[in-house]
Structure formats: C-alpha cells, structure tokens
C-alpha cells in the first residue's frame, strides 16, 4: 500500500509566510507537495469558519502562518489568528478530531528556509496522525 499523503491547507499572510514561500521557491528549497497555500491579506482574516471548512471539506491538517509577533502589518492580525487557532482546536476536540492537526506559525518574509521547515514539520506530524478519518472518539484525544 502506498504511503499516506496528507492534504494540508496553509493559510498564509501576504506579507510574510506567502513571501517566504515564494522565497523558498526562488532559493530552490524542496519541501513536500502536500500543502495547498491560500493567500490572505493578513492572518487576521483567517476566520474560524475558514479553518473549520477546510476540515469539513477533507483536509487532514491545517496551518496558519503569520508574521512574527509584534511585526504584524495590521498590528494585531496575527495575535487574533493565534486566538482563533486555539478556538478551532477546541471546536475540533469537541467533534473528535485531534487538535494537533491545526497549528499557528510565525515567520518573516526573509525566512524561506523556515517556511520549508514548517511544511516538513506539519507534513510529518499529519503523516504520523494518519488520515483525519482515523481520529477516534474524543476521550482518546490529547488535550
């Protein structure tokens, strides 16, 4: 049987993570092709509903990547996103999905290498967790 290839959706801020992904490409850094990037004007636009819809439509993992804390182009967008990711972790736990399937990362536009690392890290994590349909009853979930 072929190895499980997870579907991961990345919500990336236009000013940092998206530019970092672009830089990773320009630097010819290889990273897993499991990630679909969605560009946002700021991670402050990462509505809890977007994150839930990704899972509803079959994503095995989701991450939100915004600017370094204190460096948000819109001052507090990345801090709001961090809170929403925590909120969605709670919603996922309620429906029996492992909250480790969603994570928030912070990086700058100069961190092409770091972006590739994040993709590696998330892909590895989700591969270990397996398909989202594997997640069992909530009693077994880590908090």
């Amino acid at each position, binding site marked *: 049987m072929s190895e499980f290839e997870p579907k991961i959706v990345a919500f990336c801020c236009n000013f940092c993570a998206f530019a970092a992904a672009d830089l990773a490409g320009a630097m010819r850094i290889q990273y897993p092709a499991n990630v679909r990037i969605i560009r946002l004007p700021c991670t402050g636009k990462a509505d*809890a*509903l977007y994150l839930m819809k990704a899972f*509803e439509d079959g994503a095995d993992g989701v991450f939100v990547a915004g600017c370094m804390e204190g460096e948000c182009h819109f001052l507090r967008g990345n801090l709001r996103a961090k809170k929403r990711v925590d909120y969605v972790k709670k*919603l996922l736990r309620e429906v*029996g999905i492992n909250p480790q399937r969603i994570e928030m990362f912070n990086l700058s536009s100069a961190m092409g290498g770091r972006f590739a690392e994040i993709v590696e890290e998330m892909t590895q994590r989700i591969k270990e967790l397996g398909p989202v*349909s594997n997640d069992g009853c909530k009693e077994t979930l880590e908090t």
Partner: protein
Amino acid sequence: MIVADRKPLDEILNSIKDCDRIMLAGCGGCVTICFSGGAKAVQLLASQIKIARKKQDRPIEIIEVTPERQCEYEFIDALAEDLKSVDAVLSIACGVGVQAMTERHPDTVTLPGLNTKFMGYPVEHALWDERCAGCGDCVLEWTGGICPIARCAKKLLNGPCGGSADGVCEVDKELPCAWQLIYDRLKKIGKLDNLKKIREPKDWRTSTNAGQRKIKFEEAML
C-alpha cells in the same frame, strides 16, 4: 440583553441523532451580540455537526438561517416553506426564540442548542456579568443603582452577610460583594441613610414565583 451559552456538542448531537435534515436557526438579536447564536455561530455549529456526523457515517443536511429576531412571529413565519422538508429545528436563540418557533410552527419539533443564562451587561468585550434578575419590583432606587437580587448570592435586602470579606463574596473569590458595592456607591452619592431603613421581606409574586407573568400595554393593542 439576554446572554446565552452553547450547550455541549454531545448534548446537541444526541438531540438530533434521529434527524437526517435539520434547520439550524440562529437569531440576529441578543445571542448574536453574545456570540452564541448569530449567523457566525450558526455556520460554525453547522460545520461541527457536519464533521461529527460524517465521522459517524451518517451525513446530515443542514439549512442555515438567522432571522432578524427569532422571538417575533413576523420574522419566523417566513421559514414555514423550508420547514416542510426538515426533521427538526435546532434553535440557537434564547429560550423565547425556541418557544416562539414551537408556537408558530407546531408541526415541527424545535430543539434548543443554547442554555439561556441571564440578563447581562458586557463589562468588557466578550465578557458579560449578570445585572438583572427580572424580579418584577425594582429596588435600584435605594440601592444606588446596584442590584442585590441579581448580584448578591443570597439576594439579601439588608446586607451584607458575614461572608463578605475585603469586598469579596465568600461564594467565589472573583465575585465582588454586592452589598460592599452598594455601600461604597451610597457613600459616594451621600445616601448612606438609605441603609438605616430595615427592608421588609420581598414579595416574590412579582418574580417567577406566582406563575407565568404577562404584560399588556393596552394603548398599543390592535
């Protein structure tokens, strides 16, 4: 405004376990403001329910609606057509909304998705404190605008009790003693004399203790 809190998801899922198609009805009034039952809450809860049901191999269809106010028949009568195709309505309005839906659409079962808590005031963004218990006989005039019925754990009229220490209630260290607040306020406005009068036991018939209450405004009736 009325403040409500969402029921645990398990309880909600259990209440709709026999349904294959439901209407998830929010409300554009109080529960939108307290984030528990507005259009956004409807979308998020619908998403959670769909994911949970998909995991149980029993997908569910959900019609998402958020009438302006679920507690007024003008706004919910328009839902009649859509209701013909659903097994139940899951309402995330306050208890008034749930009962309005039941009364206006008696052929459909309406289930509650929220626990309606109290009439509250937003002390800061997304944090509400209980302020009014709807006792039906307001005492705020002589208590300096601070309600001992809603805010004192014992609903004392001649407080404080012995459990008040350093301005904090013995019930919860986070809870200020309502009677300390009343004393401080009356002192500030020079009305401490209000406390010299012993208050008679309250007549609770104006509250919920004498059956359902009604209010009629004769002049406005059609």
